[in-house]
């Protein structure tokens, strides 16, 4: 729903907004995989993880990518909220009875407009809990580095923190389960030859996110640090 315009096309056209959502969404899916790979280093112990964390915050390429990620995040959320508002305006009078049957979203009852804002809140809280959380320093191989491992272990020793984290990962898994294949559809990459594969990849991706991220705090909560 762009404003009345005589322009033949617009960057505010519904399809373009969706394609920007798809592009930024896919980029953040890529980030999730890198983030997960980094998190798995937690299982290798404090030395390896702190070393990795030190390299990440001191590598100019990573810092550049971090700013790009912030830009992508802001685009995805601003366009997302705009879409939510536009979609609400498209039907201001609700149905008395609603029965949903759709194959597109396996979990249509939890829509992107619900999981999206939940994830946004979680991401901000998550940054303040850990990245900007308690700072400890430790000397590792003659180098003073931040003991991020300790911050993580301390934070996930609380059942409440773990419960919130797991709930957020459920929202994330639902979001990417619909978002990943959806991005292909939005760019027009749809063909009987590979549609099943794309949908399957979406399910697998969501499971990897849920299990991969979800198991780490449980591992610490059970006292395996």
């Amino acid at each position: 729903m762009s404003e009345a315009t005589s322009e033949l096309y617009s960057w505010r056209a519904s399809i373009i907004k969706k394609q920007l959502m798809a592009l930024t969404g896919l980029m953040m899916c890529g980030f999730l995989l890198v983030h997960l790979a980094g998190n798995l280093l937690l299982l290798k112990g404090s030395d390896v993880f702190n070393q990795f964390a030190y390299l990440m915050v001191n590598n100019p390429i990573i810092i550049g990518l971090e700013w790009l990620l912030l830009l992508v995040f802001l685009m995805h959320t601003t366009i997302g909220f705009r879409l939510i508002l536009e979609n609400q305006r498209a039907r201001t009078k609700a149905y008395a009875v609603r029965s949903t049957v759709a194959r597109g979203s396996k979990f249509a009852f939890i829509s992107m407009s619900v999981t999206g804002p939940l994830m946004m809140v979680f991401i901000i809280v998550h940054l303040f809990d850990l990245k900007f959380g308690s700072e400890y320093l430790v000397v590792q191989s003659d180098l003073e580095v931040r003991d991020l491992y300790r911050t993580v272990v301390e934070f996930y020793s609380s059942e409440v923190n773990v419960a919130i984290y797991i709930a957020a990962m459920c929202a994330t898994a639902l979001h990417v389960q619909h978002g990943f294949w959806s991005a292909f559809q939005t760019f027009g990459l749809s063909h009987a030859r590979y549609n099943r594969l794309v949908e399957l990849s979406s399910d697998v991706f969501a499971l990897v996110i849920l299990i991969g991220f979800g198991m780490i705090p449980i591992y610490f909560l059970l006292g395996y640090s």
Partner: protein
Amino acid sequence: MRFTLRIWRQAQQETTGRFVDFAVEDIPAEMSLLELLDSINRGLILESADPVAFDHDCREGICGMCSLVINGRPHGPGAGTTTCQLYMRSFADGETIVVEPFRADAFPVVKDLIVDRSAFDRIIAAGGYVTVTTGQTPEANDILVAKENAEEAMDAAACIGCGACVAACKNASAMLFVAAKVSHLSLLPQGQPEKSRRVLTMVREMDQSGFGNCSNEAECEAVCPKEISIGHIARMNRQYLFAMLLSGERS
């Protein structure tokens, strides 16, 4: 059979509507829902009351005039059929059947169950056509069409423009309708000259009409009486991007 029909009554666009219950008895199972509405209306007319306004025309599932959201589903239960093809045997005896108009701000209620779907006409006028040369009737087989394209174009051309896709979509998006038209014409050689321009102008008109944005839930596909696939939406998405970035169309 015995039913309670809970029907949306609204005198005109500006007034607020409400549900009115109609209890009906001795209804034959082979009666269609629209015939039941006819019989309710006959009763209302005999009482000099205002009959329930609803859209209908061919009553054989091909004109796209009938609408209605029945028990929360556009065109009622059953896949691949329109409201006029819905028979009372599809409901349980004694059931309360809720009948509402299509809900979308781009489809304002005109009266009772009738909504104004002229936004679809404006979208068609914006680009849903092909240019043909005048003069003598051309030889039918002059322009060859690949079998696959003919089949796919025919699948899209099956769209009767009823608007169930908009009614079912949680965002009231018209993407399936517009995609069916764009896909149908762009798959055929006759539709090539306007291919890029068509997708741009039809989407522009769709956006300006106040429909929502597609979120790929495929609710449209599930209720479409002609079972049109969201694969056509993918084709339109692709064509829009190409038309915007690569075609010479500017203004």
